[in-house]
């Protein structure tokens, strides 16, 4: 039941009403004046306050105001002799629940109290519901925040992991290429020189054993030659040393020529004539994206022609790889089949650039790579990487100003590689 403050300066009324309310199952706290009543308000978890207007030297309305200000959940019922206009107006502003006009029926008191208690109980229920809802909401928000943070962190971790794996992979490839070159390449060359020496020693060819040996040597030479060339090709594909030695443009040119030679795909290449200094890792990333794009063309596009264009405009390097193949719907491409695209994008994230794929079924595919340049060029004064076919003298290999106008291409038209 309810906890009720019964404030009346007449002891007889407190006794009668107190007994009545206790009988009805309520808990009753009595106060004989306003001060005591206010202390009770502060002290007990009241549901209903039954206040006499006249409380000794004080006033029931003061208590009602205190309740209104500090415990607005408590329902206030005023007991009054003759309600006048002033007290009625105050009552409205103090949100009095109801009045009991003396003299009152006991039954009416019980009824009013029980309505007030019920109203308070509904309030509590409502508040509990609101609190519960707020808690649930907060909990959900917190979980969303936590999950979002986890996802963001996971994305950051994945990018970092991908970048790290690329670095490790490049290092391994470099080491492998080095070993292959030193261990296989050099030894095969040694064999080749030996065969060449033997061949000369057996000149002029003599009949019998000499001729047979000569035949063997002549048969061995192309085998060693093939092995050496295979080793050379594997080394070059593992590690584009040309990037370090001759710069990005030469490496791109070689890659495109190599692609044309190996696959028969007709390749057109357009690159700037001007040099540009790029960070080594950026040059490598761009080069690997080109390789990936060409691999995609060869594997999936069923194209007969591919055009590779590299231009520098407006503080940005742009590389397009455009084929005339069967195209596809990038949106409909399942992730499992788009790993190549994903890997290109990861590479581009490394240089704060982007990879954009434009394709439609039947309309070929264009891979568009963008690399912001201004910052890059300015920061690459040390250990920079040549993007040109002309080595700079060491003293001159400093900051290269970003051209304010688009650089003229080597040729306004694409030049076919085979024509060289």
């Amino acid at each position: 039941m309810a906890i009720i403050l019964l404030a009346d300066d007449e002891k007889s009324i407190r006794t009668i009403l107190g007994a009545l309310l206790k009988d009805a199952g309520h808990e009753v706290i009595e106060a004989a004046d306003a001060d005591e009543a206010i202390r009770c308000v502060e002290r007990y978890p009241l549901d209903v306050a039954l206040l006499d207007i006249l409380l000794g030297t004080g006033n029931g309305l003061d208590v009602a105001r205190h309740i209104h200000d500090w415990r607005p959940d408590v329902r206030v019922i005023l007991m009054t002799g003759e309600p006048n206009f002033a007290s009625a107006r105050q009552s409205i502003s103090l949100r009095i629940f109801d009045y009991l006009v003396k003299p009152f029926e006991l039954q009416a008191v019980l009824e009013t109290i029980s309505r007030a208690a019920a109203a308070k109980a509904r309030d509590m229920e409502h508040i509990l519901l609101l609190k519960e809802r707020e808690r649930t909401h907060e909990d959900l928000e917190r979980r969303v925040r936590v999950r979002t943070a986890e996802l963001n962190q996971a994305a950051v971790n994945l990018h970092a992991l991908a970048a790290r794996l690329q670095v490790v992979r490049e290092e391994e490839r470099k080491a492998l290429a080095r070993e292959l070159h030193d261990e296989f390449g050099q030894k095969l060359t040694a064999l080749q020189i030996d065969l060449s020496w033997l061949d000369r020693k057996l000149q002029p060819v003599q009949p019998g054993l000499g001729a047979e040996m000569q035949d063997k040597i002549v048969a061995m030479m192309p085998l060693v030659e093939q092995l050496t060339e295979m080793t050379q090709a594997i080394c070059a594909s593992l590690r584009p040393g040309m990037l370090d030695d001759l710069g990005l443009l030469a490496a791109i040119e070689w890659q495109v020529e190599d692609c044309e030679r190996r696959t028969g795909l007709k390749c057109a290449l357009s690159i700037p004539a001007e040099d540009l200094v790029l960070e080594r890792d950026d040059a490598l990333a761009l080069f690997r994206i080109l390789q990936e794009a060409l691999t995609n063309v060869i594997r999936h596009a069923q194209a007969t022609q591919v055009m590779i264009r590299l231009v520098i405009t407006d503080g940005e390097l742009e590389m397009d790889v455009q084929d005339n193949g069967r195209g596809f719907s990038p949106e409909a491409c399942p992730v499992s089949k788009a790993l190549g695209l994903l890997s290109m994008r990861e590479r581009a994230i490394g240089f704060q650039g982007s990879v954009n794929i434009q394709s439609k079924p039947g309309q070929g595919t264009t891979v568009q790579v963008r690399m912001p340049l201004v910052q890059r060029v300015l920061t690459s004064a040390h250990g920079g990487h040549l993007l040109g076919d002309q080595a700079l003298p060491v003293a001159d290999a400093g900051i290269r100003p970003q051209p304010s106008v688009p650089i003229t291409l080597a040729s306004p038209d694409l030049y076919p590689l085979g024509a060289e």
Partner: protein
Amino acid sequence: MKVLIIDDSELIRIRLVTLLEAIAGVEIVGQAETVAEGLLALRQFKPDVMFLDLQLPDGNGLEVLRVMHAERNPTVVVVLTNYPHAQYERRARATGAHAFLNKARDIFKIPSLLAALMTNEPPHGDRAEQV
């Protein structure tokens, strides 16, 4: 004809020496394994012909060529490489390489190449001294 060999592989240098010394008139004046050693040997021995590998431990043989080109060094340079790509060849020739040989298939060309060079005036011969 004084010949210098720059190649980091001892296996190859030994064989090149054998191959070259069999040619009448050829004298191997020095061998080097790195870019730095190569440049020193070049100044010290003033060879007529130099065989130059590209992939060297401390850099690329193109660096040797670049320095020689800048210093107008008259030594005839024969590049001998396992990276026989056109881009390397263009750069090598642009900085003065006389020949660009693929280690996989051009070894046999060396004797005739040297013979041809010997029929001309060696660059560090009498005439070269006056330059």
